[in-house]
């Protein structure tokens, strides 16, 4: 069996990542999904969280934050469609916390949703699961 799976990370404005990788972890709606080459066909929506990309020897290549979206998986390919994508390295905790405070007291539906996304951004920054496998 192939030892790599092709992975696309797509945002509305551009294709962000496109390469062959060893493994991907995506934040599925009902829990994190680890995707290895030869994964069965699956379609899932995503919750806000981290998308982690690993090389062939399971070394962490890149990590992104996505604010939700979809993943389509078949044995040769994994495609993540995300609305907002940011590289984890480019996130700054202080500014996000500031934003979180701003949004905390808002009551409209939209800002509540924003709040949830920002909150999970913080969580994503704090968590270090899966960093070494």
């Amino acid at each position, binding site marked *: 069996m192939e030892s790599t799976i092709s992975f696309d990370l797509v945002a*509305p*404005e551009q*294709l962000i990542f496109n390469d062959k990788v060893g493994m991907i972890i995506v934040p599925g709606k009902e829990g994190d999904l680890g995707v290895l080459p030869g994964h069965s*066909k699956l*379609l899932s*929506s995503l919750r806000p969280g981290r998308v982690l990309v690993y090389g062939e020897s399971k070394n962490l290549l890149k990590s992104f934050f996505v604010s939700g979206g979809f993943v389509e998986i078949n044995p040769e390919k994994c495609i993540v469609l995300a609305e907002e994508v940011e590289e984890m390295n480019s996130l700054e905790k202080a500014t996000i916390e500031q934003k979180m405070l701003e949004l905390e007291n808002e009551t409209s539906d939209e800002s509540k949703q924003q709040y949830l996304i920002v909150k999970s951004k913080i969580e994503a920054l704090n968590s270090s699961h899966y960093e070494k496998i």
Partner: protein
Amino acid sequence: MPSLKDLKTQINSVGSTKKITSAMKMVAASKLRRSQEKAEAARPYSSRLEEMLLSLASSSVSGEGVIKLLTGTGKDEKYLVIPVTADRGLCGGFNSSINRATTKFVNSLESKGKNVSLITVGKKSRDFFNRIMKDKIIESYVDVTESGYDGAFQISNKIQSLYFDDKFDKCILIYNKFVSAITQEVTRQQLIPLDIKENNEKEKKDTDDKNSAAIYTYEPDESSILKDLLPKNISIQIFKMLLESSAGEQGARMAAMDNATRNAGEMIDTLTLKYNRTRQAFITKELIEIISGAEAI
């Protein structure tokens, strides 16, 4: 007969117009390239989303709520028409062809007794429809192409909230489809309910060939994915169409300015000819005066 000075000023002013139009042509050409790149970059997302939607939509989920975006309200009474134009003029027939097509379409709907409302995108359609059918306009958006995906997202949210308030049954977009740098095609696209059949037949073949045994596992389940997917699809459709329209605008402007530059060049040529003739006529006249004056002595 115009004096030499008049001709000179005229030549100069046409010359400076020519400079401006040729500069605008260059600007449009470079902007065209950029918008084309943007449209190119957005393609993977929209085509993937469409594929996903196709595989789901065929599974005939029925129900209330968001699903109505796919199935429609079952009525055919109220229409929402969205003409998309540019914010700026000087791009040939780009804006006016949209406005004309929209007016025609609205009139034909009304003659069938349908109720029509409008959401305009772009300054040019806003100004135009404010003049002739102000009462139909629900909302106007300007400067959306600059704000990228967020702009499309806003419009899509507005449309959806109107839809669920039962303000319309069908939503139709009228925009300029980018065919090539010099041609745009006025296109009517039905946004709600989703016009899946048309795409389906075209793409069915591909999917049939590729994965006829495509049985996906859905997580959480088909209908909830579909519920997430449908609103997103609307935003992305709008986004795609905005990008196409902005690329088309630059293309149209480039062509219009190219024409204007050429016309100005021709005008300068004829004016210069006229100038030279007039000058020569003056000289001849003066010479005759001098000669006849000398002869008289």
